């Protein structure tokens, strides 16, 4: 065992310990604001874990979403929560006169927790140490996939219909938020010159990074999901700095971008179904650019959907208002 292995092992143990501690604090701390901040830290450390597990594609997605967008969504929800009812969240729990939880109702979940850990742990440890899973199948087909990054090949080619359905899930989530009537605006804050200038520098860089991730995803870690999340983050930053969009632009162009990903997917799937005889079975020669086309559309849709989910409100036409 070399020194570097020991150092990495110690790092792994530290990471495991920190994640457990943070998860426990997120669940147990009384202050919701604190819990959200700790959850963001948890997401950042998860990104490190993905790097340690040789999953850089997931690390990129986690850093953009788990540590960034989810935190922004939670913070915005907390802000709106406090706007709806000014009294602090903790006061509500105590004021709603509920009987003190009995001892069994405190202890039983803990016992269940320990039993679940033991049971699942036993199941995990009884698995074989070496299992190739689908690695041989992926390796065998890589040459025909049109890309060099195996994760992108799985996402857009081998299991393309998963990704197609996932685009629809994203769209459904946004439609559900809209059909609930949307949420109220964030509490007004005076716009700030520093935030505005930060936006002016960061947003173009984020768009550039997004394009880079999309392009590089064909043969290195990256791809539509990471690029879309970065684009979504740029949108969130713009919305936070008080960016106003013409209603005109919000109406049809936004809706067009929102359905672009699923739309292009479905059209390509249908065309391939009739010409190639299978849903999303790409002809080998065309696979590369078909995947790039799909990914570009998906990136735009994911970015727009995530930013719209953060905004929460429904864009209305003048007639509706």
């Amino acid at each position, binding site marked *: 065992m070399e020194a570097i292995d020991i150092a*990495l*092992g110690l790092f*792994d*143990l530290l990471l495991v310990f920190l994640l457990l501690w943070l998860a426990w604090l*997120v*669940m147990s701390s009384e202050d*919701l604001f604190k*819990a959200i901040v700790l*959850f963001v830290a948890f997401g950042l450390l998860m990104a490190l874990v993905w790097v*340690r*597990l*040789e*999953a850089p*594609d*997931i690390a990129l*997605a*986690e850093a953009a*979403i*788990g540590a960034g967008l*989810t935190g922004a*969504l*939670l913070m*915005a*929800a907390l802000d709106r*929560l406090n706007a*709806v*009812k000014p009294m602090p969240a903790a006061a*509500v*729990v105590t004021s*709603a006169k509920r009987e003190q939880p009995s001892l069994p109702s405190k202890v039983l979940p803990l016992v*269940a*927790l320990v039993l679940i*850990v033991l049971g*699942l*742990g036993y199941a*995990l*440890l009884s*698995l074989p140490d*070496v*299992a*190739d*899973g*689908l*690695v041989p199948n*992926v*390796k065998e087909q890589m040459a025909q996939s049109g890309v060099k990054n195996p*994760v992108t090949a*799985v*996402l857009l080619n081998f*299991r393309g219909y*998963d990704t197609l359905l*996932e685009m629809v*899930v*994203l769209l459904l*989530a946004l439609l559900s938020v809209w059909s*609930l009537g949307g949420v*109220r605006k964030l509490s007004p804050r005076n716009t700030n010159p520093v935030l505005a200038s930060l936006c002016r520098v960061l947003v173009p860089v984020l768009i550039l990074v997004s394009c880079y991730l999309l392009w590089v995803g064909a043969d290195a870690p990256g791809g539509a*999901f990471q690029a879309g999340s970065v684009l979504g983050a740029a949108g969130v930053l713009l919305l936070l700095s008080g960016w106003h969009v013409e209603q005109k632009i919000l109406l049809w162009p936004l809706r067009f971008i929102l359905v672009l990903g699923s739309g292009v997917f479905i059209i390509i799937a249908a065309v391939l179904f009739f010409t190639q005889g299978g849903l999303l079975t790409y002809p080998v020669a065309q696979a590369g650019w078909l995947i790039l086309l799909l990914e570009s559309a998906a990136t735009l849709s*994911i970015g727009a959907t995530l930013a719209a*989910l953060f905004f929460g409100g429904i864009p209305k036409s003048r007639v509706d208002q």
Partner: protein
Amino acid sequence: MNIPMIYALLGITLFSVGLYGLIVREHLLRKILALNIMGSGIFLVLVALGKRSVGDLPDPVPHAMVITGIVVAVSATALALTLMLKLVEVSGSAVLHDAPKERS
């Protein structure tokens, strides 16, 4: 006991901690946080088990599943938060109460 297995065990522990929080804590925002932590635990188990392959590369199929999973999780979180805010608007409380007996 190899490194991926330690992370897999971390995954199930995180899942259980999240499940515990989901059951014990009352505030809905906390329950949403709990669901996110449970999700992270599940993703961890998936990827850690995919690292058992003999070759130089880990199994890319769980990786792809987890990436889509993360994006689905964030959109589900956004929907759950909206539902919570709607509930607070209607009932004035971010805690789920048992339905009154006479109604059910």
